[in-house]
């Protein structure tokens, strides 16, 4: 990596946008640097399922041309971005990390995708994920796992491991994730990056291939708080094509991220999200952060959310129930994989054979559980009761927010575990989302910010901030305060401490499509 290339790759999105706008560096040059980096580190990281260098360079050239004509550029124009492969984009495959969608080219753009394109971001490609976003390690991808750039033997989190790893590996300064139970925040936490799950309804789900419709939410991923806020601003806001989209102004996340002032803010520490099962290094960095916030003028109070202990079981009923219905459309009739159509098997048998071959074990597990939970004899005891628990969790949040401005907890109970360590133990895997799930059930805004490395293993620890619905700006205020103070302590961003990745010599990338899905 040349110095100037390192400088480009390590720059923030804000800096890159500024260089493009002032003509200091072209968007094409920036895109090319990132494409070369992708070429160099993808063999070891595997953050992407699809990269379209030609298209990215074309988009970058269009931004440069626009600037050349003296047209106004948006705040992130020309900045490269990695899109989670669960959002549709025309002209590229959308696989959701599943064999059943291999090679499927959607005929329409997700609203988030469209807004990125309209804002002139340069989409480099689609990132890896657990199949249909079901997982916490990206090991459930049909196309192989993504590796954590901090330690290639470790998981990058999930389901959005690709989007988080792309940031930590300096393959892109920005990425898009989607969060159903922590799929933005948990990967952010274990890769030392920033991930925000907006208030449910704050970003459009149109074109996001649904896992659990009442929980899913796209959100920004970045290496800095301000970058995340600017990306949030681009993708958020009312979408008439999503009935659950909120028709209200987007909270002023950018100003909050610039301010970072927490003086007088009341910050609640959730009693239930600590203790047994939490790694000492995680707890240590969390407590240091609490003290740091206190020293910055925040008022720290302990709050109790007694029903949070029921969040995990409620989530693992609601999610599979909705998923079992959402994934019924993958039936080999209109799109995607078709197996066994030999003229002898009937439609029902072809559906069964295709879904057998096209879905991985975790997807099958959850579909079966959801099918069971929604069955007439069990609905009340399972799905119905889980929906009531959801009400109780929302009430816990309401009570807590009556006395605080935000709540905080560790983002995950542990740092990144080893690849393969939990694949055969679904329940242990589900525990990763313990802290993140309550906000999906209640729909409030939530984010993970890096707060250091655990002393035991030198791996990143994340702090979760939870804000009331539509108060997404408060997340950024707290995140920016932590970032400013910690960066000063560390003498630079946390990611400056990441060990270098093995690099393969870069080849020319122009016109090359890396079809990760075909590997």
């Amino acid at each position, binding site marked *: 990596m040349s110095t100037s290339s390192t400088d480009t790759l390590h720059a923030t999105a804000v800096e890159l946008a500024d260089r493009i706008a002032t003509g200091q560096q072209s968007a094409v040059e920036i895109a090319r640097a990132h494409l070369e980096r992708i070429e160099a580190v993808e063999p070891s990281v595997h953050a992407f399922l699809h990269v379209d260098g030609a298209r990215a360079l074309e988009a970058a050239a269009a931004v440069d041309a626009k600037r050349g004509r003296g047209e106004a550029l948006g705040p992130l124009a020309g900045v490269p971005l990695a899109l989670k492969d669960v959002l549709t984009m025309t002209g590229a495959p959308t696989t959701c990390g599943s064999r059943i969608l291999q090679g499927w080219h959607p*005929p329409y753009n997700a609203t988030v995708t469209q807004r990125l394109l309209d804002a002139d971001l340069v989409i480099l490609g689609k990132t890896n994920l657990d199949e249909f976003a079901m997982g916490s390690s990206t090991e459930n991808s049909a196309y192989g796992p993504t590796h954590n750039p901090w330690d290639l033997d470790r998981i990058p989190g999930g389901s959005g491991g690709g989007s988080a790893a792309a940031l930590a590996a300096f393959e892109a300064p920005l990425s898009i994730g989607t969060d159903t139970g922590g799929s933005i925040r948990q990967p952010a936490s274990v890769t030392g990056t920033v991930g925000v799950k907006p208030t449910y309804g704050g970003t459009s789900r*149109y074109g996001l291939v649904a896992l659990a419709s009442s929980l899913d939410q796209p959100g920004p991923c970045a290496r800095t708080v301000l970058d995340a806020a600017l990306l949030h601003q681009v993708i958020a806001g009312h979408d008439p094509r999503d009935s*659950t989209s909120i028709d209200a102004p987007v909270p002023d996340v950018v100003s909050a991220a610039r301010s970072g002032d927490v003086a007088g803010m009341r910050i609640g520490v959730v009693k239930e999200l600590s203790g047994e099962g939490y790694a000492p290094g995680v707890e240590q960095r969390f407590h240091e952060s609490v003290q740091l916030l206190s020293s910055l003028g925040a008022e720290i109070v302990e709050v109790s959310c007694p029903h949070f202990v029921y969040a995990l079981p409620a989530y693992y009923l609601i999610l599979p129930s909705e998923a079992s219905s959402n994934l*019924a459309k993958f039936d080999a009739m209109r799109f995607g994989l078709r197996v066994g159509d030999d003229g002898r098997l009937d*439609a029902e048998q072809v*559906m069964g054979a295709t879904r057998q071959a096209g879905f991985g074990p975790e997807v099958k597990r959850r579909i079966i559980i959801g*099918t069971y939970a*929604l069955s007439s004899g069990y609905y009340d005891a399972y799905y119905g009761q889980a929906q009531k628990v959801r009400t109780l969790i929302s009430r816990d949040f309401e009570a807590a927010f009556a006395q605080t401005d935000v709540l905080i907890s560790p983002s995950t109970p542990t740092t990144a575990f080893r690849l393969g360590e939990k694949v055969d133990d679904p329940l242990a895997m589900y525990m990763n989302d313990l802290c993140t799930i309550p906000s999906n059930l209640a729909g409030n805004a939530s984010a993970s910010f890096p707060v250091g490395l655990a002393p035991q293993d030198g791996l990143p620890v994340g702090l979760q901030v939870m804000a009331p619905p539509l108060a997404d700006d408060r997340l950024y205020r707290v995140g920016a305060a932590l970032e400013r103070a910690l960066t000063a302590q560390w003498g630079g961003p946390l990611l400056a401490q990441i060990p270098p990745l093995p690099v393969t010599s870069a080849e020319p990338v122009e016109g090359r499509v890396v079809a990760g899905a075909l590997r």
Partner: protein
Amino acid sequence: MAYDEAMATYDPVLGLEVHVELNTASKMFCGCSTEFGAEPNTQTCEVCLGLPGSLPVVNATAIESAIRIGLALNCSIAEWCRFARKNYFYPDQPKNYQISQYDEPIAHDGFAEVEVDGKTYRIEIERAHMEEDTGKSLHVGGATGRIHGADYSLLDYNRSGVPLIEIVTKPIEGAGAKAPEVARAYVAMLRDLLRALGVSDVRMEQGSLRCDANVSLRPSPDAPLGTRTETKNVNSLRSVERAVRYEITRQAALLSDGGRVKQETRHWQEGSGTTSPGRSKEQAEEYRYFPDPDLVPVAPSRAWVEELRGTLPEPPALRLKRMSAEWGYSDLELRDVVNAGALNVIEATVAAGASPQSARKWWLTELARRANELGLELEETGVTPAQVAEIQALVEAGTINDKLARQVFDGVIAGEGTPAEVVESRGLAVVSDEGALGAAVDAAIEANPGVADKVRSGKVQAAGALIGAVMKQMQGKAEPNRVRELILERLG
């Protein structure tokens, strides 16, 4: 077993489920057109194809129509209701779940009244709920092009997502032997009501109004309900009546032989006039209903509901009362008109200028006969109310007579043009040339001296034979009253 015999032994209970396709411009959850008859798969998008990532948004007009239908059926309108997913796999259903309503329908607990042979039957409405239509399949190979035995199928999703309202009755009891007629009258009433509301094209032959008929028998009206069958694919008013009658007879024969009725779905076979069992399922249907998380609740404000109530057309009972007064029909005449389903066409014919009696005459005789022969509804014979009024005007002007008018109907139905054009092209106008007519009268008197003598001696009714002879000679193109006048002038 004969129907009468069946009715002597059993009491039938009906249940009717009617699916109505709304005539909104766009589909229930997306902006695709609902226009009937477009090229396959040209009115589809990611939403109605159920492509991954797409999301539904409810059509406001469909909600309005649903509320208006509910109000017109005297239903309570829910203050808060939701859409639910009905999960089942079927290739014509792109998401493999149908967005429908389950335990929270938008309208519930209403009623409607129908009249059969002078007796009023009150039909309790259980619910009217919103849902979406499925795509259409074309079955290729096999012997008949039907689903059974086909090699494969071809799917067109133009109809997928067209808004439907399903109107479900409570068990209809007390119809007795009139059950088939009551079923028909109910569907006809719904059709008229929906048309008056302007919410649907209600074209049964295009499938925009579809009826499933539940039938069960019990030994007596105070016995518990028997096992029911659900007959699908009943797609004309006539079929509703026939299918119910067939099912009653079939079940009665089964029960009389000591057999049992199997709870099942059956299909109406129009050709043979019978029902046949559907595919038996290995396991009971398990639809796994749950509230659709992609949609938010519908909570129509009371002000909105009242505003919509203000847009309702005149209630059928009031309308009947008004028409009876305006048209001067006897009770018997009015009942015939209602039973024939001719209220709308007569109203339109009167509006086009015909007298109520002449309008009634044409629709209930000439056109009813033709409709019956062709197995069509009155509206579907190809003659419009305006054309009927025009033909009647021609009769009153003396241009044609009643007998010639029938040939004009033939011409209009055959597509030969307007009534005036048919009269012209077929040369049907009555001969008003008094010279030719007088000569024909003179010839008839001369050829029938005996008859002429009788008339001369005062037996005026004998003139009929002479009139007939004149009409024959004139090839029908004479006005019989004028002929009578001329005969009596000469023989008086």
